[in-house]
């Protein structure tokens, strides 16, 4: 019974349809983010948010239709590892940007001089 269900979900024609859907939706998302940027459809800040969302959408589409992450059977170790890595990636990227932006705005040379003058010292 169990193997039957597994085979049905892995049937070649069904999978071909999946690949085709994933391919066309990905092309559509790629082209729309490309046209948003080249034709200056939106204001700068909105455009950045929209193309980020389109990229995340394409990421999810490819994970579902190409990497088949969500039709795994019951002990979903792949999904677990994936979620763990996703959290590490987010901490790494957002954390780096956050810390380095803070550093560059607080540790610039003019600000350091101002700080030292406030302390009554100077160079």
């Amino acid at each position: 019974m169990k193997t039957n269900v597994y085979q049905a979900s892995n049937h070649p024609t069904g999978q071909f349809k999946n690949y085709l859907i994933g391919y066309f939706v990905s092309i559509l998302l790629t082209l729309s983010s490309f046209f948003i940027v080249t034709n200056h459809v939106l204001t700068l800040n909105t455009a950045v948010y929209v193309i980020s969302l389109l990229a995340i959408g394409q990421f999810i589409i490819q994970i579902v239709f190409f990497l088949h992450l969500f039709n795994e059977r019951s002990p979903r170790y792949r999904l677990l590892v994936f979620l763990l890595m996703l959290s590490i990636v987010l901490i790494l990227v957002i954390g780096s940007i956050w810390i380095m932006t803070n550093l560059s705005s607080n540790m610039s040379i003019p600000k350091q001089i101002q700080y030292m003058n406030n302390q009554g010292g100077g160079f």
Partner: protein
Amino acid sequence: MSTQNQQFDIHHVSLSELRKEESTSIFENVSFGFFVYLMTDLVLFASLFAVYAVLHKNTAGGPAGYQIFNLNTVLVETLLLLTSSFTTGLTILSLKTKTKKNVYINLFITFLLGLSFLVIELNEFSHLVSIGDSWRVSGFLSSFFTLVGTHGLHISIGLIWMIILAYRLHKTGFGRANIRRFTIFSLFWHFLDVIWIFIFTVVYLMGVTRL
């Protein structure tokens, strides 16, 4: 007697089922191990993305992104890689139906698409170096070349891998080991396309919008 027979049958079925389960679980373990490797590769790319995000404004008198990126070329690269990801899926499907000719055709198309992607990318790199915008110029260019170059290195490894796959298929046919190799390779290639989505968006599209 009949109960004995029944017991024997049950025993027999469960034993063969057990063997089947065992062999599929070994197969799934191997591809799971490769999946974990891909996830660590994801962390490698994430750290390179973080470096790029931190350094991309430090142009140090050199050019910024919008001065050197040609979006049309990058769009062609993106479509090539996306199509090659699709044909990798088709390769796996023809592997499942065991039609050798289709496997070769699909693998060859994937190879050609990957190769043309790599050629376009190397062309872009050599053009940048020839006009004096190499990785030595600024933090922005260093991080750009490292991030995009690491992806290109993965692509070239994938191209070599495809040649080995075709050779193995020619030698040993549709054995268990070959199906495993092809499955693992398709994971790798789809993964590279996923990474490229973010390079396309973060490096090229956002680079052109001057952020």
